[in-house]
């Protein structure tokens, strides 16, 4: 992975409660221009890690250096200045339901740039064209399908041409066509804007077709990393189980429970 890191996570620990760490000893270095996947099963800490990268949470220990600045040192203005260079796509889009598609995409432009109405119109139309929804500009979010909503949210997240784009479970609940459309858009927009993208997902097979590099997480730690080819060829039992979707492996099918016979009152 060539290029200087745009995201550096160095020995990061984090816990919502003292004594119960959600993230443990995390090290990441993500270079400019890359599309990186953070994968793992639900509850492994990957969304928390994304929140650390977005500076929505500060590490309990260690340093998160994003776009060259440690998040711990940022005040409110510094935080907002950094976020102007970031875009984030939420799991279900998080579109503003009282605004039309056009106004949703125009929102960051109106908030941060003093542009003429004509220029705002042209920029919004360009962003919507990039996600194939220029014709839906007049619709309200409630009139969109799940996949269309996700594409509008993507257009909104790139409205200010961010350097870093974060995706929180972008494929959840999509049909196969929308799935393919979103994954192609993530790759295309990243390369077109010269941005860096981080995708948090558990949809392994689709994500492996888009990303340049993968971090695999389990129980708050990074347990494997490498290119998609490395991951597919990995001998790590957890990665194998996850990539192949097998019920046999280190992640048990059964939640810990007392003896079956005891629960059915068969013992003794």
């Amino acid at each position, binding site marked *: 992975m060539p290029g200087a890191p745009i995201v550096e996570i160095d020995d990061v620990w984090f816990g919502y409660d003292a004594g119960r760490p959600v993230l443990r000893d995390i090290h990441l270095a993500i270079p400019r221009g890359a599309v990186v996947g953070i994968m793992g099963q639900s509850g492994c800490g990957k969304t928390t890690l994304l929140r650390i990268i977005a500076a929505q949470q500060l590490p309990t220990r260690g340093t998160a250096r994003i776009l060259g600045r440690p998040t711990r040192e940022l005040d409110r203005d510094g*935080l907002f200045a950094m976020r102007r260079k970031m875009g984030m796509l*939420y799991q279900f889009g*998080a579109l*503003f339901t009282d605004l039309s598609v056009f106004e949703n995409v125009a*929102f960051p432009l109106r908030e941060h740039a003093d542009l003429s109405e004509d220029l705002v119109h042209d920029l919004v139309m360009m962003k919507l064209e990039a996600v194939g929804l220029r014709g839906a500009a007049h619709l309200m979010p409630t009139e969109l399908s799940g996949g269309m909503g996700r594409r509008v949210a993507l257009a*909104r997240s790139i409205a200010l041409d961010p350097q870093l784009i974060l995706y929180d479970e972008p494929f959840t609940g999509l049909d196969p066509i929308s799935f393919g459309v979103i994954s192609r858009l993530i790759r295309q927009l990243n390369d077109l804007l010269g941005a860096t993208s981080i995708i948090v997902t558990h949809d392994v097979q689709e994500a492996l077709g888009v990303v340049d590099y993968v971090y695999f997480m389990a129980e708050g730690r990074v347990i494997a990393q490498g290119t998609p080819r490395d991951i597919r060829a990995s001998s790590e039992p957890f990665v194998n189980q996850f990539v192949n979707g097998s019920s046999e492996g280190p992640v048990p099918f059964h939640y810990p429970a007392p003896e079956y016979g005891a629960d059915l009152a068969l013992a003794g």
Partner: protein
Amino acid sequence: MAFFHKIADEARGRLEHLGGNVTAVVWRLGFASRFLAYMFMHSGTALRRFRLTMAEIYFTGVLSLVIILVSGLFVGMVLALQGYETLQRFGASESLGVLVALSLVRELGPVVAGLLFASRAGSAITAEIGLMKATEQLSAMEMMAVDPVARVVAPRFWGGVISMPLLAALFSGMGIFGGYLVGVQLIGVDPGAFWSQMQAAVDVRSDIFNGVIKSVVFGVAVSWIAVFEGFDAVPTAEGVSRATTRTVVTSSLAILALDFVLTALMFTGGNGG
């Protein structure tokens, strides 16, 4: 001996529970106060881009007009009926206008309009902000480097603060009109006496101005409670539902308690002096 130990343990448990509840209430009040202070500090957007606040005045004020005007009309009509019944026993039915106007301007206008405002607009503000939180819209706004307190909360707060006194004034005006309809048109009280006695008895400073102060205080209280409950709501369907209920209950109690305190300060002080 063991019996006394058991009683002592139980008493200590109850005291701890009570203490925990009191601490939680104080902590929440402190949190709400810090939230209010933060909102005041970041109200620049709401005032600079006043169209954001105007939109909320429309939402909380204009859309509450029907319930406020209809309620005001009926309250005034009932006041006139009840008032006439009592006043005529003492041969003072000509003072009906004074009774209706003072009751409305001093008490019923701000209080009933405040209670209606809390149920109609306060609950809507809490539900809207709570749902925005539950659907990650506030979080998305933060990630776009836009402070949701400045962009979403402050315009709703100031919209409520501005709307409330106007709604209370309209409520009182409509109530007086209702009193006129029943007292003068229906019962037949002399219209000259109705209006002239009202004009002579209602004082701008001690009656109308004090009523306006009450409605502004109620507007601040209801809007503060509504935006805070929405912003602090647990981001689930049940959490938003509970927050909306809390807004209506807490606002109503706050209005009644504040009304007592303000009335004691304004009118008792005046009489004493």
